[in-house]
């Protein structure tokens, strides 16, 4: 095997070229020496600790003056072995692992993973409609949150702190609803194989309805702040461009692909959870640049709010009902309700298993500790995450744990585009390119 197995070999292959390693203080000395030698090439290491890298991303830049001639991304700093860990936990426990991948869009992974398990079990059609509506509701709230973080931190990285604070205030409103329904702000473990963890709390529909205008207000404010801002336009327009053929070659999906004019959205192309019955648009642009991606993310937030409103209507019309499959061999034994302290509990269920039925106690114990068997086979489930196509490959050996769970995080794939976006541009625009890719390193490294 002659393949070079080092990702971070020396930039300068020619051994005769002098190489200086600089850590900060002696810049002027080295700069003077480099000027004397007539060497203009500078290799700079950006990260892994850098506020604008959405986690811990290392970017190796080769510079000529202010121009980036080569950009390479180095990842792996946030690898936590989630996929390996999932092979040692039950299918249900896996939800609490995959939710921690892309922690800005937690429930996206949960949804893809659970849809995959349900396909393996062959119970896709048995999921109660109420559970599907709640899944759509949570997926869209997650999408809004993720896009607001993308736009907000994108602004912050250019020095516009107000863009970030405005976006985060609006995101907080979505978190209030998510917390009231699932008990947690992020890493929710809300979507479970067979349904969702619990139904709407008391006054849930009113709470969702009250949230919508508040988020809209935040989005409007953000739009006013950004859309005519000459500095922001100067920084984002025609920067980090990538056209359709480049996107197809690199398998880019999500807002970056839609900024090249292709309205590819799995919610439309390959609907799941009943997305085909909701009324919403897929915003696109043909500008191919960082600006259009930001605008698309803003527009998608408005579209998601439309879906959220439709979810609230449906939930109100449906009233109370089950949010788990009926099959007692799969369904989690108790439906918890969130108390004032944010903890879930079910006094009725505890009374039943502790005081009334020995069989119910055994069943509870078996299902919770052992889990349920999933017939042997493999599936691939893809959904439209906020950042692009999120794919899950699941293999079952017929047991209570996944034989293999692999997540195709859109950020992992899309980050490959950083070189194309950054090379030939200014160094300051690398930050813009990273922000417009909008990956989260937790998802990239898993």
């Amino acid at each position, binding site marked *: 095997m002659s393949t070079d197995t080092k990702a971070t070999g020396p930039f300068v292959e020619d051994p005769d070229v002098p190489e200086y390693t600089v850590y900060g203080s002696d810049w002027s000395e080295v700069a003077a020496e480099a000027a004397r030698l007539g060497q203009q090439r500078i290799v700079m290491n950006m990260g892994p600790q850098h506020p604008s890298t959405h986690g811990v991303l290392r970017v190796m830049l080769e510079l000529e003056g202010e121009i980036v001639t080569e950009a390479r991304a180095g*990842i792996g700093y946030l690898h936590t072995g989630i996929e390996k860990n999932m*092979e040692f936990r039950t299918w249900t426990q896996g939800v609490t692992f995959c939710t921690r991948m892309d922690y800005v869009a937690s429930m996206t992974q949960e949804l893809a993973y659970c849809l995959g398990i349900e396909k*393996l079990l062959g119970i896709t059609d048995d999921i109660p409609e109420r559970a599907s509506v709640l899944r759509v509701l949570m997926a869209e709230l997650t999408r809004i949150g993720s896009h607001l973080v993308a736009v907000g931190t994108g602004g912050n990285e250019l020095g516009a702190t107000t863009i970030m604070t405005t976006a985060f205030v609006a995101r907080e409103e979505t978190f209030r609803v998510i917390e009231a329904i699932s008990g947690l702000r992020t890493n929710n473990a809300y979507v479970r194989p067979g349904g969702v963890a619990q139904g709407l709390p008391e006054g849930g529909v009113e709470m969702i309805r009250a949230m919508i205008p508040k988020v809209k207000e935040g989005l409007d404010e953000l739009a006013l702040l950004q859309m005519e801002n000459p500095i922001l336009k100067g920084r984002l327009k025609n920067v980090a461009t990538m056209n359709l053929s480049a996107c197809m070659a690199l398998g880019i999906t999500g807002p970056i692909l839609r900024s090249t004019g292709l309205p590819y959205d799995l919610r439309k192309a390959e609907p799941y959870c009943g997305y085909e019955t909701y009324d919403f648009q897929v915003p696109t642009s043909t500008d191919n640049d960082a600006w259009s991606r930001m605008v698309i993310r803003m527009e998608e937030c408005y579209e998601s709010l439309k879906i959220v409103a439709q979810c609230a209507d449906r939930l109100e019309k449906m009233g109370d009902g089950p949010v788990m499959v009926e099959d007692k061999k799969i369904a989690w034994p108790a439906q918890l309700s969130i108390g004032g302290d944010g903890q879930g509990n079910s006094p009725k269920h505890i009374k039943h298993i502790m005081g009334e039925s020995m069989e119910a106690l055994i069943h509870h114990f078996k299902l919770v500790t052992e889990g349920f068997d999933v017939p042997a*086979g493999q599936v691939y489930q893809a959904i439209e995450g906020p950042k692009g196509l999120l794919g899950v490959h699941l293999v079952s050996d017929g047991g*209570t744990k996944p034989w293999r769970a692999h997540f195709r995080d859109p950020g992992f794939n899309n980050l490959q585009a950083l070189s194309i976006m950054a090379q030939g541009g200014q160094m300051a625009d690398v930050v813009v390119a990273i922000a417009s890719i909008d990956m989260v390193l937790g998802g990239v490294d898993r």
Partner: protein
Amino acid sequence: MSDDKNLDAVTGPASPEGRAPLTLINVREGMFGAKGDTSGYDGLVQQVQMPGASERPYGEWFDGVVDVLSELLGDDADEAIEYVVVDRGELTLYIAREHLLAVAQHLRDDQDLRFEMCLGVSGVHYPADTGRELHAVYPMQSVTHNRRLRLEVAVPDGDSHIPSITSIYPMNNWHERETWDFFGIIFDGHPSLARIEMPDDWVGHPQRKDYPLGGIPVEYKGAEIPSPDERRQYR
């Protein structure tokens, strides 16, 4: 999992010719995965297999795609497509590694196939599947026809070489690096097959089944709780 010493006696002939075209996922012993339980099922041996080859008609658009691909491959078709599985509404083509590049080229370029995107490559390790221990699974996405199929290439552990498809699907660059990193599948012709998630000097390929999960025992109220992969558990 890898300590099945008498596996051949249990699973019968392991030669590729003598066996049905199935993927042996696992051979389970005992009832609960742990040795020495008191259930009386300690000697139980179960083979777990992937769904087997499907017969025509495959249904949906599957027949058409397989037909077009076979026609484009010509005389190589029988050799290239080992077998076809339709399971849970998904089409899987098991491809011989020698023909992977040709298959990928046709899948991307032919107007009736047009799978523009490869959604990466996911490695899977089946230690019990003698001679085909390492599998590379390629989900292919057609945006034009809105279809998805799966290519699966199986290679033996001792000779884990698969041609890189980055020349046809550049987006697979990082995905192949990841699968090399985690499973040790060598993608020949990859421009720079370096580790991507683990450090450069890491030894071993962590997502193989014989690679331990790791972790340390934890003491809790006087009792010692073993690390997750050492715990007695249902399997």
